[in-house]
């Protein structure tokens, strides 16, 4: 079974984003970028499936600028077999990403797509579900455990209040949550080997997908600042403060 893993190049998890002065967006100039953390979990899961003999090939796809090639290389160093870069400098919304991925799925015929549940930049949490809908495939979002059982995939999901297990007919889309696995670090020899793995470069037009955004950004602003309050000396002082504030 071939496994397709889409990955996104985003601002590094540890960097505090700054809103541009003209309110047009987030300042990404000279900011450290990295692979979306949930996508690392997706690649790790695919690699583990391959190590268990459940997956035969792992194709890593990114839709983004030329530098997204570096993100694909990280995935290849973690154990991916080859990459597809759909190169564009435009901002691509989840719906357009899902449409491009659907075309790639038609061409590649994977048995499973494993995607991150959300990208930590725009926090939409939509691409995997949209892809599943466009393909008429079943989905299991927010996965914390994945097990293949013949032609079905048993996926345990993180839901409000606990866990839920679904049985999906393959092919299917799974989106990953934090506790699914702990992604490996790419070793230096594997990083060197990954440099020789093939990456196809395409454009959105190659797939006939119109990526014109449906949502236009009116403005991006700083959230309301919350002022720091006061330090209290001890538990009694804290209780007195909470009582006078009517909180207890």
């Amino acid at each position: 079974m071939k496994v397709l893993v889409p990955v996104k190049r985003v601002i590094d998890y540890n960097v505090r984003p700054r809103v541009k002065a003209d309110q047009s967006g987030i300042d990404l100039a000279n900011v450290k970028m990295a692979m979306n953390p949930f996508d690392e979990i997706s690649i790790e899961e695919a690699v583990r499936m391959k190590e268990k003999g459940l997956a035969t090939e792992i194709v890593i796809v990114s839709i983004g600028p030329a530098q997204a090639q570096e993100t694909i290389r990280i995935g290849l160093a973690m154990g991916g077999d080859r990459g597809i870069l759909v190169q564009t400098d435009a901002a691509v919304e989840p719906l357009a990403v899902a449409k491009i991925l659907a075309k790639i799925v038609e061409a590649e015929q994977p048995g499973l797509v494993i995607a991150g549940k959300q990208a930590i930049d725009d926090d939409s949490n939509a691409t995997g579900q949209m892809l599943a809908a466009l393909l008429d495939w079943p989905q299991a979002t927010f996965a914390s455990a994945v097990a293949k059982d013949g032609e079905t995939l048993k996926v345990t999901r993180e839901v409000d209040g606990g866990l839920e297990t679904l049985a999906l007919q393959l092919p299917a889309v799974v989106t990953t949550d934090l506790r699914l696995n702990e992604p490996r670090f790419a070793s230096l020899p594997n990083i060197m080997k990954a440099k020789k793995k093939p990456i196809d470069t395409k454009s959105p037009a190659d797939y006939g997908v119109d990526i014109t955004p449906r949502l236009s950004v009116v403005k991006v602003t700083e959230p309301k600042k919350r002022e720091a309050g006061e330090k209290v000396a001890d538990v009694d002082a804290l209780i007195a403060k909470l009582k006078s504030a009517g909180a207890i």
Partner: protein
Amino acid sequence: MAVLVLAEHSNAALNDVTAKTVAAAQAFGGDIDVLVAGHNAGAAAAEAAKLSGVRKVIHVEGADFANALAEAIEALVVPMMSSYDAFFAPATSIGKNVSPRIAAKLDVMQVSEITKVIDASTFERPIYAGNAIMTVKSSDAKKVVTVRGTAFKAVESSGSAPVETAAAPAGPFKAAFVSAEIAKSDRPELASAKRVVSGGRALASAEQFNQYILPLADKLGAGVGASRAAVDAGYAPNDYQVGQTGKVVAPELYVAIGISGAIQHLAGMKDSKIIVAINKDEEAPIFQIADYGLVGDLFKIVPELTSKL
């Protein structure tokens, strides 16, 4: 204009976030119908009919709705959308799961987790873990929106809308429910609790998390939360997680214990009315947003606080 609101419910009862989603739909405007898709969900439909400002409730029964199977809800909602201009769902694990499927089928770009309705095509939503607020205008003919419940005030339950029934779409679907492990608890539900007590990595073990956090939560009648670090370390289950990738809460009182205050955690709780932080590191970022901070050893402070309350 008409809006279809997806009700969140347990079949036996309506979840409070439904009333908040109706409030967001009211701000959007037009007639509001509430869809209760469930299994033996008559009680939830009756509660939905009481929500103020609702034109009618559409109650659909089906075994596949017992656990809100996304494929079944998509098959139900997509044909219904020919009569509606917008679909609003709460940004819960159910709403987040199913709404993008519906959006894609309608060829609409979803607007996720809105915190404000500006007009019938313009919305505010947090991005980058709440470090920025984006105002977006949708050019799609129909809108598909998920609603962050904490940003809207629930509508009253003083209405009496009619309840219609509709047929469930024929299965079988390509996904099937197998089992669920839902933690049974007498504590208030985290997302809607008036008070929340959360523990972080400083608790150092699951045993100590339970030993120190739970008695204080019970004393306060509070829901229990945790930082991602505490969840990652296995001190608390994932459904306790408050933050960018967990739940967003805005209670009257939020007590952060042994939580340093990473931006991803603050994203989930900084709209709380009163924030109390207890941490031994006086430089911890949590103190920059806390109304009342107490610097010291949580293993001494928390039992003292619990006993004196």
